[in-house]
């Protein structure tokens, strides 16, 4: 337990080092000079002198481990960034400072987190219930037209990209029928929960469709397997109602691996649902990442990557702990 926690922290540092290396070490290995890196942070008209001054000021001339040390130190105790005009404070945990928008990365990310969180949580509820229910029914009615239809739709759901289904759904339900909110609508939950749900309904459905399809297939496969187990026969032999046999004995066992994947999917999604947020113009973390990449704003990209990695590591940790709760056989060891 404690070992797991420590290894999670170590893993995060490894991730931060690797990401840092990708953005700051690789360009140097590829032949870029500190001046080349610094040229992004000065005006287009800047001369060689000014660029070099900026490179020194930003620390690009220091050895790479000194640069990483500074970055890592910033995460723990915070740091200061000299913009050349003023010295900006970046309090701990500092994930970097964007010289393009002139502000620290983390507060920006936290501002956008509620959007991504709302999107992920709502969709997760939908896909978990929808996918699992579909999978169970499909498994019980295996080979029936219902099963075939559901699995056909699931195959489509897994295969179709979200920017296709999303745009299609927007054009039909939002711009065509006017049932749902238009792209880009978002109301914070604390302002108006009903409006919040209404605005997010279509993104939720679109995103959950993708996942529900995968979960339906997973659940179906799991149920087909567990319903053949000996303990299902025992449950029937006890005289349990079929509903209890299916839910309490079959689904309970089939749900364990699904829970694992659910945790990881949710963690991944919290790092930004890039395609969904872009399709529906939601200002979440995913959109932030896309904008950062488009503007070549390396500190932002680095920060977003680290935040995403943190969510995934935490999700892994939670899933590990949950697994012990769900499967008593894991508890002893």
């Amino acid at each position, binding site marked *: 337990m404690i070992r797991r926690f420590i290894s999670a922290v170590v893993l995060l540092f490894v991730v931060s080092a690797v990401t840092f290396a990708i953005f700051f070490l690789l360009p140097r290995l590829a032949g870029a000079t500190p001046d080349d890196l610094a040229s992004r942070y000065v005006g287009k008209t800047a001369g060689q002198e000014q660029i070099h001054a900026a490179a020194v000021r930003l620390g690009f001339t220091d050895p790479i481990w000194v640069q990483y040390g500074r970055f890592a130190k910033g995460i723990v105790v915070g740091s200061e960034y000299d913009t050349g005009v003023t010295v900006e404070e970046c309090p701990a945990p500092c994930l970097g400072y964007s010289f393009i928008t002139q502000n620290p990365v983390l507060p920006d990310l936290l501002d956008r987190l509620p959007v991504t969180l709302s999107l992920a949580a709502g969709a997760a509820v939908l896909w978990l219930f929808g996918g699992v229910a579909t999978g169970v029914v499909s498994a019980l009615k295996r080979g029936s037209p219902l099963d075939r239809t559901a699995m056909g739709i699931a195959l489509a759901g897994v295969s179709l990209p979200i920017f296709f289904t999303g745009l299609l759904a927007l054009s039909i339900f939002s711009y065509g029928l006017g049932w749902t909110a238009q792209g880009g609508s978002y109301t914070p939950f604390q302002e108006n929960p009903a409006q919040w749900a209404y605005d997010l309904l279509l993104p939720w459905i679109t995103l959950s469709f993708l996942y529900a399809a995968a979960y339906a297939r997973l659940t179906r496969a799991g149920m087909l397997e567990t319903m053949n187990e000996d303990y299902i*026969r025992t449950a*029937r032999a*006890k*005289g349990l109602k079929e509903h209890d046999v299916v839910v309490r004995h079959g689904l309970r066992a089939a749900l364990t691996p699904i829970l694992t994947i659910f945790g990881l999917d949710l963690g991944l999604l919290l790092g930004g649902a890039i395609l969904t947020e872009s399709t529906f113009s939601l200002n979440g973390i995913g959109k932030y990442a896309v904008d950062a990449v488009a503007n070549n704003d390396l500190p932002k990209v680095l920060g977003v990557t680290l935040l995403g990695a943190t969510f995934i590591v935490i999700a892994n940790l939670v899933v590990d702990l949950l697994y012990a709760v*769900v499967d008593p056989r894991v508890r*002893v060891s």
Partner: protein
Amino acid sequence: MSQPSTTPGTPTDEAPTAPAQKRSRRRREAPPSTGLDGIGGLGAPAPNSFLSVRDLRVHFPTDDGVVKSVDGISFDLARGKTLGIVGESGSGKSVTSMSIMGLHKPGTVRMTGSIRLGGEELIGAGSETVRELRGKRMAMIFQDPLSAMHPFYTIGRQIVEAYRVHNDVSTSVAKKHAVEMLDRVGIPQASSRVDDYPHQFSGGMRQRAMIAMALSCDPDLLIADEPTTALDVTVQAQILDLIRDLQTEFNSAVIIITHDLGVVAELSDDIMVMYAGRAVEYAAAADVFERPEHPYTWGLLSSMPRLDRVRTERLRPIPGAPPSLINVPSGCPFHPRCAYADRTGGLSQSERPPLEEKGPGHYAACHLTASERNNIWENDIRPAL
């Protein structure tokens, strides 16, 4: 056949020894032979019979043809009595028990004949009717208690569940009952072990817990499907003792399904030997061991190691393998593996032998004549056992 007649060659009229007399008193009342209706048929149920199976056929239609897992078997079982069903894998013994419990998946199986439990017909009864009987009036214990118990629920919770399906009591009352049951089947510190998970129990303990679960609603019929196969030899005897003790206590009818004649020898009043979905021999246990009438039973006895006698020869396995249940051999299904099939003048190859009364209450399906069987048994089989 309540009055043992005096057919020569049957063990009952050979100088009755004390244990033999004791056994015959325990013996089930044989059904009247007047009602014999050919293959596998036994006529009207015996008056004290609690479970009466008549001409049960269980067929599974598949893409390759109809699998005739059970093809016409009949037997009677009274309360407090034990029937042992013996046979190789695929002989239809487990399918028989699953049919009684109504555990076959609906739509995959064609069941005909009659299964009467306490006078109530089970074949054709609604699934809800049979479900309510399951666990309450008839219960089952399975071969491998580890896979037969749900790994995610405590032993106690699984017993509580079984009890509460049929009894309208609170969880705490049911839990107390579960502890009592665990204590009754010999689980030490039952009140604390009730909260353990199946994987925390040893194999023998798990089977005890399984028995506690099966008996929690005090069923009239207990079916034990290979109850000791997955257990250590030392534990096997304990479990069999436990089943016998509990049977006496609860006065339930018990069916033991096994491939191990040693198991039924200890427990059974009657034995039914099954082959390719049919009964080839059906008689009181003592008779089957003292004077078996069917070559297949001879084969089972010859291939069984015995500790109570000095062996003079190696064990003799039955040659060949059980037949396909889709294309059952013509005539006697055992004839391709039978060493004596050529002594019936081609009858074994062409005609299916009916299950006939060869001695009092002793049924067998074989074309060999009485003298021939007697001859083979006395000269060929018995000396080599």
